[in-house]
């Protein structure tokens, strides 16, 4: 019967997180032993010999109080800085990360690769390559948690959230939903298969049938007649979408924001929330007309519009424009 006491280290973040854990464990063991030891020793050494005994009242030396305020404070600042650096590192996915889309739905995970493969509760990824997950939910809040990678990110309906990691060991690792989401919350689990790059390519080619994400996006773009307004030459009454992704957009109310996946998604489902400067709020909402997968395909297609044909479908966000 397998009976592990410590999780596997299978991603770039696992060793980082575990080193901070060892430091915290060391500090905790030290203070626990200190307090337990002090209590046992003092309790036994100064146990009550007789009822007439009256201990002398000790004056409280300030230096002791200052010592055990400043020292713990210093330790906690180390913990804060170290933890914050890991968190900041986890919040900046590298540019060459392999983009995968994840849609959480009550009690299953739906993954979509760029090349069009779709998987339920399973995700095949190559080892050694940074993977970036852009995730959303169709109903309640879920949370994409892979213990072996030490990463977790809530999947919130109504917005995109990102989780990135680089698998460092091939194998099969647990995927859990970590935010309570209803009856089968404990069955919304799956596996992450980390494979050798060559093995991954064979697996990928096997799934060519669906057509790549951006191809599906283009088909959907035509079906929904988006092209009538969003003309490629920019002559239509709506903003030109070519090269939009990653660009800074000037809004009607003067604010400038960066056109990331979240902005494109919001402009599809709630067009009047952020109206581009110089345009009228004409666009009808597609809320309910397009599924989350459909929105992901459109986002991928719009991202592909900006790229010169042939360059790999990687994400190239410009430096983030400061929010006004």
């Amino acid at each position, binding site marked *: 019967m397998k009976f592990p006491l410590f999780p596997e280290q299978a991603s770039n973040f696992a060793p980082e*997180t575990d080193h901070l854990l060892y430091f915290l464990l060391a500090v905790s063991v030290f203070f626990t032993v200190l307090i337990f030891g002090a*209590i046992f020793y003092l309790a036994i050494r100064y146990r009550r010999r007789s009822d007439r005994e009256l201990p002398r009242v000790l004056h409280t030396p300030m230096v002791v109080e200052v010592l055990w*305020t400043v020292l713990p404070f210093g330790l906690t600042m180390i913990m804060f800085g170290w933890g914050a650096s890991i968190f900041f590192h986890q919040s900046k996915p590298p540019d060459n990360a392999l983009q995968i889309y994840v849609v959480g739905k009550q009690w299953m995970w739906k993954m979509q690769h760029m090349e069009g493969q779709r998987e339920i509760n399973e995700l095949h990824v190559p080892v050694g390559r940074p993977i970036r997950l852009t995730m959303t939910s169709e109903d309640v809040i879920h949370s994409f948690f892979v213990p072996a990678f030490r990463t977790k990110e809530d999947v919130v309906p109504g917005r995109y959230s990102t989780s990135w990691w680089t698998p460092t060991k091939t194998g099969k690792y647990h995927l859990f939903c970590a935010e309570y989401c209803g009856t089968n919350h404990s069955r919304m689990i799956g596996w992450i298969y980390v494979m050798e790059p060559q093995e991954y390519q064979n697996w990928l080619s096997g799934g060519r049938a669906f057509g790549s994400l951006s191809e599906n996006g283009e088909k959907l773009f035509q079906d929904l007649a988006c092209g009538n307004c969003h003309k490629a030459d920019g002559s239509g009454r709506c903003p030109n979408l070519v090269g939009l992704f990653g660009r800074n957009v000037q809004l009607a109310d003067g604010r400038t924001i960066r056109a990331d996946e979240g902005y494109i998604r919001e402009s599809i489902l709630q067009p009047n929330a952020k109206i581009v400067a110089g345009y009228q709020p004409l666009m009808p909402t597609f809320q309910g007309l397009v599924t989350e997968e459909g929105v992901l395909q459109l986002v991928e297609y719009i991202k592909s519009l900006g790229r010169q044909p042939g360059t790999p479908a990687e994400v190239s966000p410009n430096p983030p424009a400061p929010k006004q």
Partner: protein
Amino acid sequence: MITAAAQEREHYLNASYGIKSWLLTKDHKRIGLLYLFTVTLFFFIGGAFATLIRIELLTPQGGLVSSETYNKLFTMHGVTMVFFFLIPSIPATLGNFFLPMMIGARDLAFPRINLLSWYLLVIGGLFALFAMLAGGVDTGWTFYTPYSTTYSNTWVIATALGIFVAGFSSILTGLNFVVTVHRMRAPGMTWFRMPLFVWSNYATALIQILGTPVLAVTMVLVFCERVFHIGIFDPALGGDPVLFQHLFWFYSHPAVYIMVLPGMGVISELISVFSRKPVFGYSFVAFSSVAIAVLGFLVWGHHLFVSTQSVYAGMVFSFLSYFVAIPSAIKVFNWTATLYKGSISFATPMLYAFGFIGLFTIGGLTGLFVAALGIDVHVTDTYFVIAHFHYIMVGGTIMAYLGGLHYWWPKITGRMYPELWARLSALVIFLGFNLTFFPQFILGYLGMPRRYHVYPDEFQVLHVLSTAGASVLAAGYLIPMVYFVWSLRYGQMAGANPWGATGLEWQTASPPPVHNFDEMPVVTHEAYDYTTVLGEVEVG
């Protein structure tokens, strides 16, 4: 044998009889006892849910109950324990009973509002009980939206209404305590002569006043969202579910300090009395209670690190979460330092105090783990967090509550509890507790998510250990129930001051007269001046 005359001395218990004398009482001592019964009832209801959860988790596939029922079990365990046991327990029972006596007042500032507080807790409790019996609620005690407002079809509104009403009981108790401490101290009782139990209950009252109303408005918004679909938390209509988490945790994090601060107050009393020494660094311990109350309001974002809260806000909340850890550390160090050169007795309350300091230290240190952003990403929503807050709630608050109950039992009832049985149950509780919750730290770091009805096989051994511990813990909690009731009839008669303590509550008879003091006390000595009591110390 005790002469009849002593028996007939009039005190608050035999001053009047009958249901009406209890249900319409304005005496803070009787209201404290009413709370004691209510809170104990809810403790055993919550405990029953916990037992069922632990039995369910014995097997990976979980055969005892269906997943719907399991989801209701952990929700109702959470709601009952948090809102109907932990928050009212020490402030409403021991606080109500002893705060006025400790500062030399005849009663709280607003006795009728005090009785109203008890009725509000009972009415809120009945709403929650109705929800449980009618079919239960399955949203988790945190009620995260949009599940609680749109997708759950269980008794969410009835439970939310129960919590809304019980919230006002907490607000009014807090209001009563603050006004009493400010306006009704006995002559000579300056702020720095007040016992530390009063300081910690004062700090708790501040949190109850400033935090609980935000929980009330959150419950109103959940009610509106669920009934009228106004879209406040529903992303389809433009709402933001993470805003609910902000509002909820703005109250619920300070609420954990409402639960632990009174326990710290009890421990300060016990450590001082049973080492017959003033608490080391009295003013530091007093100010750290207030510091915890204030800083407790600046840290709620550490519950949202991975919930798409911005990374910058996460850093601010993580930084401030370490600030709130410092006053707790100061308290632990000062308690331990009090033992130095003391005259330490091993009466049961002191055993509970040692248990509290040890377990609260572990609970507090694991708090440093979950406050670190890097670690929290991995351990949030896992059994590591479950173990962390149970170490502070069960290892801390309940240990302190039992310690306080044993310490003041002679004053409440005039009778002593049986010393040997009490020490045995303290030891059983300590062992059972550690066996239950220490394995959960390991489970948590292994990645076992919380609120899971079924789990992978490799976690089973640790779950079995935890369930074994839970059964020992449950047994440990039952023993005091037996001997406390037994002591009412057969307990040794306790004098006015069996422990040789210095508080004003020990300078009046046990059980105390209706108006606490026959003649108004005037305070002339510092807080824990044991020279005053050395003369008439009786063997405890």
